[in-house]
C-alpha cells in the first residue's frame, strides 16, 4: 500500500498549488471556501467567472483524455488536484456536473457529433449542466420514473413531459441530461431513453425547493412538451438505463477523494473552537474528537489502498463499495460534533433573517449526505448483495 505520492506527482501538486495561489486572489478572494454543499446558492456569478478562469489555466476536466481537451491526469494526480483545490479554499465548482457526469457519459456513449458539440463547452466552463434523474415517484427506486419522451414526427424532435426533482443548479444550467420513457407503457428499466435537453425554453419551469436550511440548492423541474433535438438522444431509444448506469459509475469516481481535504478543513475549524471555548477539556468531547480523527484518517487510508496498484490486496473493490456509506456517516457525525462543541452557542444564527453559521449549515446539510446519491439503506443493500452475495431485494436502485 502506498504511503504517499511519487516525486513526479508531488511536482504536479506544486504546479496546481502555485497556480491556485496566484489566481485565487483579488476579485476571487471573497469566494474562497464558499459555494460548497449547503452554500451552493452563494456568489453564483463570481463562481461562473471563476470556472472560466480555471478553464483558461487548463484546470477544468484534468482527468479527461487529451483528445477532448483534458490533461489525461492519472488517478493519483486527480486526487492531488482535488486535495490542493480544497486546501486552497477553491469555491464550489459550478461545472462539476458537466465535468464529472455529463462529459464522461457523452465520451462513453455519445456520437462523434455530440462529443464535438458538447465537450468543448463543458471544458471551457461556457455551458453548465444539471441532472434529471429523480422524480417524485422515483427516488431510491430510480427505474420507476414516469417522465415521457414522445417523438414528434412532423417537427422531427423529441417532446419531454413530466417532472424531475432534487435537481441541483437547475435554475443556473444551460443543459439537463435526463432519462425518460421512450416506449409508452413500458415498466422498470426497459423502454427508457437518455436525453440532452436545453434548459432555456418556455416549456421548462424550474421551482426552487425550500430546504430545512432555509436555502434552495435543489429544484423541481417541470417539463411540458419540452423540445429535445433528434440528435440529442444518447444511444438508442430503449438504451437509456444502460447509459444512466454507466454514468452512476462515474459518479462514484475520484471527485469524492478530494473531499477529504474539505472534511479536514471543517474538522480543524471545530478543533479551534473547542480549544477557544474550553470544550476540549470535556472527556466525552475528546473521545468524539478522536473518533472523528480516526474516521477521517482511515478514509484516507481507504483511498490510498484503492490507489495502490502494487498491492497484494484482493479486496480493493470492496474498499470502494463501502466508501459512500462510510463518508456520509462520518460527515453526519462531524456536523453533530460541531454543534456539541459549540454548546448553547450552536443555536444562535448569524443574523436575523435565518442566516445560518457555517457550522449550522454543516450540521443541517450533512443530514442530506446519507440520503442523496443512494441512501445509506440502499448502500447497505448494494454491499450486502454485490459484495457479500446475499439474496437481492425485489428492485433496487441500481437495477
Amino acid at each position, binding site marked *: *500500500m502506498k*504511503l*504517499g505520492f511519487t516525486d513526479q506527482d508531488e511536482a504536479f501538486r506544486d504546479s496546481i498549488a502555485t497556480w491556485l495561489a496566484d489566481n485565487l486572489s483579488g476579485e476571487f478572494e471573497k469566494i474562497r471556501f464558499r459555494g460548497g454543499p449547503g452554500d451552493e446558492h452563494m456568489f453564483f456569478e463570481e463562481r461562473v467567472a471563476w470556472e472560466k478562469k480555471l478553464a483558461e489555466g487548463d484546470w477544468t476536466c484534468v482527468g479527461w483524455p487529451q483528445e477532448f481537451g483534458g490533461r489525461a491526469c492519472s488517478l493519483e494526480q486527480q486526487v492531488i488536484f482535488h486535495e490542493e483545490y480544497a486546501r486552497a479554499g477553491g469555491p464550489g465548482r459550478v461545472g462539476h456536473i458537466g465535468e464529472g457526469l455529463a462529459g464522461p457519459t457523452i465520451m462513453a456513449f455519445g456520437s462523434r457529433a455530440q462529443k464535438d458539440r458538447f465537450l468543448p463547452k463543458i471544458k471551457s466552463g461556457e455551458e453548465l449542466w444539471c441532472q434529471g434523474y429523480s422524480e417524485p415517484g422515483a427516488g431510491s427506486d430510480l427505474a420507476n420514473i414516469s417522465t415521457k419522451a414522445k417523438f414528434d414526427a412532423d417537427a422531427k424532435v423529441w417532446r419531454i413531459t413530466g417532472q424531475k426533482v432534487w435537481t441541483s443548479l437547475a435554475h443556473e444550467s444551460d443543459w439537463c441530461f435526463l432519462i425518460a420513457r421512450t416506449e409508452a407503457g413500458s415498466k422498470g428499466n426497459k423502454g427508457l431513453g437518455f436525453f440532452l435537453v436545453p434548459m432555456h425554453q418556455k416549456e421548462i419551469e424550474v421551482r426552487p425547493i425550500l430546504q430545512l436550511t432555509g436555502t434552495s440548492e435543489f429544484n423541481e423541474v417541470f417539463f411540458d412538451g419540452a423540445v429535445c433535438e433528434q440528435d440529442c438522444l444518447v444511444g438508442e431509444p430503449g438504451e437509456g438505463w444502460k447509459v444512466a448506469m454507466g454514468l452512476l459509475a462515474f459518479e462514484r469516481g475520484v471527485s469524492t477523494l478530494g473531499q477529504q481535504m474539505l472534511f479536514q478543513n471543517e474538522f*480543524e475549524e471545530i*478543533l*479551534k473552537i*473547542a*480549544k477557544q471555548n474550553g470544550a*476540549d477539556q470535556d*472527556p466525552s468531547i*475528546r*473521545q468524539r*474528537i*478522536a*473518533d472523528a*480523527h*480516526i474516521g477521517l*484518517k*482511515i478514509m484516507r*487510508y*481507504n483511498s*490510498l*489502498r484503492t490507489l495502490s496498484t502494487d498491492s*497484494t*490486496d484482493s*479486496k480493493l473493490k*470492496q*474498499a470502494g463499495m*463501502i466508501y459512500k*456509506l*462510510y463518508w456520509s456517516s462520518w460527515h453526519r457525525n462531524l456536523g453533530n460534533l460541531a454543534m456539541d462543541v459549540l454548546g448553547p452557542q450552536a443555536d444562535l444564527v448569524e443574523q436575523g433573517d435565518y442566516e445560518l453559521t457555517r457550522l449550522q449549515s454543516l450540521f443541517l446539510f450533512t443530514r442530506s449526505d446519507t440520503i442523496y446519491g443512494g441512501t445509506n*439503506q440502499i*448502500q*447497505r*443493500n448494494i*454491499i*450486502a*448483495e454485490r*459484495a*457479500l*452475495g*446475499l*439474496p437481492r*431485494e425485489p428492485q433496487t436502485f441500481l437495477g
Partner: protein
Amino acid sequence: MIAETAETFLVSQSSSERVRAAMATELGFDENLWAQITQEMGWQLTHIPQQYDGLGLGYVELCILFEHMGQNLLCAPFFSTIALGANALLVAGTDDQKAEAFVAIAAGESRYALAYSDGSRCWGCESVTAEYQQLDDGVIELNGEYSFVVDGHTADKLIVAAREPGSSGRDGIGLFMIAGDSPEVVRQWTPTMDQTRKLASIKLKGLRVAIDSAMLDMGNAAQHLDNILALANIAQSAEQMGVADKSLRMSVDYISERKQFGRSVGSFQAIKHKAADMMTKAEAARSAVYYAACIADEFLADGPMGDQLLEAASIAKAYCCEAAFFNAGCALQLHGGVGFTWEYDVHLYFKRAKAAQVSFGDTAWHKERLAAMVLEAV
C-alpha cells in the same frame, strides 16, 4: 502468497477442535504445533533482520500472518514472543543482546513475555511501578509486581520494565532481560474469560541480575517502551481485523443457509444491513492495519514517516478492536440461539474481541492519546 500459506496451514492446524484442546490447558498451546510453526513454517523469522538469521521481511508481511492467526484464533506464544519480545529487542536491545536472543528465537528455542504494567487502568509508562536499583558492584536488583502478562507463566525469557526509585511518569524507566525461571521470579497463571490467550501475574522479589541484562538507555527508556507497545498494538490490530473479518464470514455463511419463514434469513433487510455494516468495519479496519504496518516498516528502517508510529498504532488499535467487538457481537446476534452455545465458535471470537479491546491500552485510552495529539497540533 504468505496469506494463502498461512490460511491453509492454520485452517487445518488451528481448527476449532485444536483451539479448544489448547485453550483448556494452563500452558495454553500445543507444543507440537509451536514446533511446527517455528521449524517448518519459520514464521518467527519474518521480520527479524537477516544479520540475525531472520528473513528480514516487512511488518506488512508480519501483519498478514497476525491477521490469519486472529481469524483462526491460533493458540501459540507467537504474539508474546514476536510482537512483544522480538520487537522489544529490535527497539531496545543492545548488539550483544540481539545477537544472542535473535538466534535463539530464530531457532525456535526461546519464548518471550513482556511485563511492564502493574494492572492499574493506565497503560503507558505511568503504569510501571516495579523498581530497579543499581548496587555498588554493578549488579541490578529488581522488585515489583506485574499483571496481565501475556504468556508470562510459560515464557522462558522475560523483558521487564522498572523505574528508578522515586521517579514517576515517563522518568526513570529501564528495560531488562531476565530468565523466567529464577526463584526470585514468582509467576502465577491468572485464568481468563478469553481462554485462547493466557495471562499471568509476576512478582520480582529482590531479583539480582548483571548489568548486561539492562537494555538500551536504562533510566531513560520511556520512548523505547512506547515504541515497543505501539508495534505490539499494530500486531494486535491485525489479529483483531482478522477477528472482525472472520466474524463477518461466519455470519454470511450462516445467514445464507439458515431458513425461516420459508426463505434464507440473509434475505431480510434487517439482517443484510447488519452484515453490510460489518463489512464496512472490517474493510476500514483492514485499511487501518495496512497503513499502520507500512508506518511500522518506516519506523524500523528509520524512515521519515516513522514519527507517525504512535498515532498510526492508536488509530489501528482503537478502530480494529471496536470493529472486532462490533462484528463479533453482530455475529452472535445473527447466529441466533446457536450463537449462545458453547458448541459454536462465535463465543470464542466474541470473548477474544473484548479481551483484546481492554488490553494494551483500552479504546478510551488510545482515543485520549489521539485527542491530545490533534488538539496539540491545531
